[in-house]
């Protein structure tokens, strides 16, 4: 699909509102429908066993962050590939195989970086 109207995105809007509505409706419904019996013991995180201590949110390993950054970088790479792939036929007709080499070069640059990252041991998880 190379041509579009904004209205073509209407289904997206519908689906999005349906998803949001589902969340809101279930949250309200469980609140209203379920029986309510509150007590101090019942509201504790563990009803039995060791008493909860401290905060659930403790600092996590920086490795997660690194993985997330790598993800964003490759996300951006994919963004570049999208208009390339969509127009590949037309570009190929006009320019020949150069268009393929262009993307290969782009990928090679990133893969060189990725290889460096692996060699550096960034993805090693201990």
């Amino acid at each position, binding site marked *: 699909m190379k041509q579009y109207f904004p209205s073509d995105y209407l289904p997206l809007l519908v689906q999005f509102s349906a998803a949001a509505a589902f969340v809101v409706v279930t949250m309200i419904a469980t609140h209203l429908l379920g029986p309510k019996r509150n007590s101090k013991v019942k509201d504790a995180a563990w009803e039995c066993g060791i008493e909860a201590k401290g905060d659930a949110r403790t600092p996590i390993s920086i490795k997660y962050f690194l993985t997330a950054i790598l993800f964003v970088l490759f996300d951006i790479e994919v963004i570049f590939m999208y208009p390339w792939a969509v127009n590949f036929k037309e570009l190929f007709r006009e320019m020949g195989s150069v268009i393929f080499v262009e993307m290969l070069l782009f990928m090679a640059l990133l893969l*060189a970086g990725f290889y460096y990252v692996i060699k550096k041991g960034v993805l090693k998880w201990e």
Partner: protein
Amino acid sequence: MLSIILLSVSGIASLFLGFNKSRSLLMPATLLFLLVALAVNLWDWNVPFTLSSAYNNGMMTVDKTTIVFSAILLVSALLVIPFSQNYIDRPQAQPAEYYAILLFALVGGIMMTAYDNLIMLFVGVEILSISMYVLAGSDKRNLRSTEAALKYFLMGAFATGFLLFGVALLYGATMSFSIKGIADYTNANVGNLSPLLYVGIVMVLIGVLFKVSAAPFHFWTPDVYEGSPSLFTAFMSTVVKTAGFAALYRLLAVSFTGLYDYWAMSIAVVALLTLVVGNITASHQHSFKRMMAYSGISHAGYLLIAVTAFQNTSQDAILFYSLAYSVATIAAFGVLILVADKQQGSEDFSAFNGLAKNNPFLAFVMTLAMCSLAGIPLTGGFFGKFLIFSSAFAKGGLNWLLIGAILMSAVGIYYYFKVVIAMYIREGKTEKIALTGLQQAAFVLSILLTLLLGVVPNLFADLV
């Protein structure tokens, strides 16, 4: 064009050379890469490489001006690299990454000197800046270095936003990213230009002026320059500034010649402000490195005078001045790196006390560099200032700016000579500092360049 490809490839190569156990190969390899890139760059002099004209569809130009600007960047890098010896000898150093990112930064710098399309300008600025953010924070265990990187990154990202928004507005007004296309549009529609164009020019100027640290966009400079490792401060204050001025002048000269009356006044005011802020604040500093940061700001002011003058000679003046400034700055930082290493990392003026007694050569290099930065005759800095002032004089009507600049140069002499006095007159003890062969070569080259520029300026002035 070819030099960009070469530098990218050698950057990647240097990245992977780091996996080699031996570190001793890295610096010679980087110097070799840079020399080859310089040779290839100069090789385009008479017959620009055909690929660059046929394949890039008006994305960049290789002509004599861009070749000379790129050569200044490469020479600056060549002069900086020898002083990395102490820095990479530390056990926690990762030299392969330093050199690789330096090489990548040069790619961005060369793009900024040779762009024909605002997209290329943007990508070039970004490659250069992101490399600088990282190198500013390369001393990971040092809190000041991390602070410098973060500060530079946050402010720089903000300035990049201005640049990008300005580029978008320019496109919106003229339907073109090409700087020649913008010029064609503005020339064809004089008197009927949309306000988007004017706002766009202001935004782009803010973005670029931030990168060259002109007042009032200079607030990041002292902290970043002081916090970064001296090695990368030297690189930052020379390469980024030269590339930034090349980009600024190219944009104004190609695209906005017809709108001179619109932007000239604001640049002139920024120039005066930069001179006053840079010089007055520099004279109060106790730290030599911080003084050099403010001196970097003030030199941006001198270069902006040449931009304001906008004569035929202005571009030559900018070229000459950037070369003289870069060489002198790198020599000064070279001495600072060596001295600070002996003085437990102290970068104050007092670290230089009595340096001349045991290290007459280093003291001489520093004195010459300071003379050149202050603009004393027989050095490159004098003729740089002379060329800039005479181009402004030829323009006429800029006398208020010239008077301000000359007054501020006098202030400059005061603080540049503080270090000379410390070296020759103050009492102090510095043992003999050993230089590596490459460092000696770099110092000798910088002395020669500074003196040659100062004694036979025609040799360089007629080049372009």
